[in-house]
């Protein structure tokens, strides 16, 4: 399990990294935390001739509060940075709650938000969090910058909207509405393993508790994280109670579930129904003291 021969280039600016990306084309891969790419290289599932190491690009670091209440997270921010950030805990409690579920602390020390989003593993937490929070991804290429909604970015297993000459530079997370409800719940074979099923959700509510809008996202079940629009529609307009949540569950969307040697599609769909109901109960304060 030794990687094939390769050269490592270490740009110090986004512009330099992009020029290297254009120069080396499909011979090159970007590497940030390396927590997914390094095992792929060690098993020789990929053998790029060039690695463009982003770790020296200071401009990609940092978690920045914006005056409008939103937050911009640099692509090179480690999972551990998000987990320990007071700003994230205050403005993005859903992310703070989810971070301990991302692999193990050693992996979180290296893995980055940009790397996780670009890799787009179907069981990864960060794509789901971005969907549930209505995030926008900032991408740069020699052609310029563009912003892509998370909803448009994830397209399948390891498949995204990112063009070959683009890199993710930042993630924009809009300000939460006052009184926003949220929940995160996940089930894996062991703590830190790839999720067999997880739910991340946010719900905007009126002062009297009526749901004005909801983003309910499932991950780990199908090819990529996805919203559950029919379940969302069944919740919006209600003032949730345990009974009303149960009554909404038959509206749960038909999802095409994956099957592998860890979990059959039947099991993943059972988990989806159970965890979606539990996540909604958790979000609206009906704790049934079972987790996940």
């Amino acid at each position, binding site marked *: *399990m*030794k*990687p*094939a*021969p390769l050269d490592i280039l270490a740009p110090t600016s986004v512009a330099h990294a992009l020029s290297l990306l254009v120069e080396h084309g499909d011979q090159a891969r970007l590497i940030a935390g390396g927590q997914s790419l390094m*095992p792929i290289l060690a*098993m*020789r599932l990929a053998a790029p001739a060039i690695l463009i190491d982003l770790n020296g690009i200071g401009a990609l670091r940092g978690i920045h509060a914006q005056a409008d209440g939103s937050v911009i997270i640099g692509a090179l921010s480690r999972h551990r940075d998000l987990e320990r950030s007071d700003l994230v805990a205050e403005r993005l409690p859903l992310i703070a709650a989810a971070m301990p579920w991302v692999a193990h602390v050693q992996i979180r020390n290296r893995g980055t938000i940009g790397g996780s989003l670009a890799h787009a593993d179907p069981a990864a937490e960060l794509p789901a969090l971005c969907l549930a929070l209505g995030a926008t991804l900032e991408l740069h290429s020699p052609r310029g910058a563009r912003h892509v909604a998370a909803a448009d970015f994830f397209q399948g297993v390891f498949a995204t909207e990112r063009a070959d000459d683009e890199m993710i530079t930042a993630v924009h997370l809009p300000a939460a509405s006052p009184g926003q409800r949220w929940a995160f719940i996940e*089930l894996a*074979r*062991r*703590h*830190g*393993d*790839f999720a*067999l099923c997880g739910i991340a959700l946010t719900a905007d509510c009126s002062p009297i508790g009526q749901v004005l809008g909801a983003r309910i996202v499932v991950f780990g079940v199908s090819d990529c994280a996805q919203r559950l629009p029919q379940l969302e529609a069944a919740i919006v307009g209600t003032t949730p109670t345990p009974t009303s949540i149960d009554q909404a569950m038959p509206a749960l969307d038909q999802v095409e579930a994956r099957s592998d*040697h*860890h*979990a*059959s599609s*039947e*099991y993943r769909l*059972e*988990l989806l129904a*159970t*965890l979606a109901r539990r996540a909604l109960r958790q979000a609206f304060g009906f704790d*049934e*003291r*079972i987790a*996940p």
Partner: protein
Amino acid sequence: MNAPDRTGLGNAFEATASGTLTGAPIERVEDERFLTGAGCFTDDVRFEGMVHAAILRSSHAHARIRGIDCSAARALPGVLLVATAAEIGHAHKPIPIRLAPLPGLDRFLQPTIAADEVRYVGEPVAIVVATSRYIAEDALDLIETDYEELPAVTGIEQSIAGAALVHASVGTNVATQYPVGRGDAEQAFASAPYTRRERFRCHRHTGAPMETRGLVAEWNGSLMRVWGATKVPFFNRGLLASMFDLPETAVDMIETDIGGGFGIRGEFYPEDFLVPWASMQLGRPVKWIEDRREHLMAANHARETECELEIAMDHDGTIRGLRGRAMADLGAYVRTGGGVAISRLAQYLPGPYRITDFACEVMAVITNKTPVGTFRGPGRYEANFFRERLLDLACADLGLDPVAVREKNLIAKHEMPWPIGRLVPTEGEGAYDVGDFHSGLHKALAAIGYERLPRGGTRIDGWLHGVGVACFVESSGGGKSENARIIARTDGSFDIYSGVSTMGQGHETVFAQIAGDELGVPLDAFRVHHGSTAHVDYGWGTFHSRAIVVGGSAVKLAAAQLREQLDALAATGHVGAPAEDIEVKLRYDTRGPTYSYGTHVAHVAVDPETARVKVLAYVALEDVGRVMNPLLAHGQAVGGAVQGIGATFLDELRYDEAGQLLSGSYADYLMATSTEVPAVQAVLLEESPSPSNPLGAKGAGEGGIVATGGALANAVGDALAGYRLPLTTLPLSLDNLARALRQARAAGNAPQAGH
């Protein structure tokens, strides 16, 4: 540093209240070098001019080799050697069986390298040696193999059916088949008021030690030295010497520190020939370190068995008889471990119960999967799960209390020694030597607080609680003899040499404790040397929990002889250390195996909606005769239980129908971590010292794992009592348990109040 207080023993101290070293929870003398990074593991062995090997392995489960083109690999700068069966020629011989050579097995021996056909994914096809492991792996990518695929056999039933043969020239996939038994099972079943038959399955998994295999071989023109030996270095020396037509004295096997053995590490594998052979060709030291992917596809697998088992009972729970059919999937070849696991499985099906009428048809079959070997508690873990689960199913049928039924049927203390008959064809009649099985059961229940535990599906905060019990007995202390050599040095210190090897258990500490008590000198007077073929004339190695029972007894008797000589010297008026070295050499022969026994109790909670299981408490109780060092013995028991908890829920080597391994990395082969296991409570009893050896010791290395599958399956079954799940298949993975719950709901067996 202070010992962790997880054992409840308090911090380590230097001697027992009576002043003996044995029996005291003394910290391992090995720990300092392990914890400070000063250990010397195989990969730490480095020599001037050393080069690196990598193995090309079959990517097919079954294929004919039409051609191998190594020219591009040989042309790569830095590559020194590329060899296939063609280059190795006459030196390429089959690897013989070391243990349990059941009739028929020797037709399926593994060659050291595949010549015409490959029979499992991972089988060695070529060896490359280069100036670095990186270049060696680059060269593997350049070897062009031309395979003609053949049909793959991947299951026991498919193998027995024989439509496709793994070894066409043998004409069958059935490697061995024989009946064993005692009494008259047919008669017992004919007259029994209640019988129940189930088909059980235990999954393929393995020991997966933290340190993978590896070795460094150096040929200097007259002597072959191999670093990285463990388990059975003397046997492996003899085998390697015979493969090279060398005298045994021309081969030295040298033990390094070892990061775990668990039965799979240290057996003679193809690489144990290929790497020394390469060193001989090149005249340079060659290192090979197995990577984790290789380890999971090439080192021994274990445990994959199926068993149709039927119990006959009276309505009061008295067992009248047991009969069945046990089948093992041996993989593509029969390796050194021969038929150990399947023969022990059949032997231990009746377990610690008074079952006078027993019959079992034993069968082992060949498939296109990685060959199997022994893994901690071989055959015992599987047999214990089959029998203990069947007992609980019978109790549920009859409305009987599982604890009361076990009490009723356990062999009583006064019935010892209890003859078990001849249940292994390669052995004679056997008998459980001594034991109080009832005491073990009662003390295990008391340790977990059985009476107070919520069980039977009691719901607390959404979780259903259950408790499971499993009783076991298992043999240890095999391998007929062991050598010990002790030298009293002129500076007052002592060197102890033993023929056993060590994988991290702490023999350096315990042998010094044993000798220290005989000689009346403190622990730090001893240096303990083990496992290398240069130390003693012969050694039988470390397996079957024999190191203390046999090796420790040899050390004790040698130390006693040395004490006599030193006393005689003192009687002449000599004071202090001897003027010249005094040496005692001794061979100790065993009087047969010892039998450890005990009970495991598990308390679990199950979320019936997600199939998630939490192990809340676990007691592993074992009577090991005499405890030499409670700290280390507890470590063995806790480690075994943790490994068994992981095995029961997580570890699984999965193949697809084409024979491709699906769990070839630690992302797919899941082992228990600290988040999956509770604080295991190990209880060690010394109520029944073994009469078979001077220490009174019984094996302490394997009892921690033996009853885990049975106790946990029974606990989950108890928690989900309302669903009446058979739970006849391991592992109890989320997916398997969810399927069982789905089937129960579909059959209308689910209790009301769905969540």
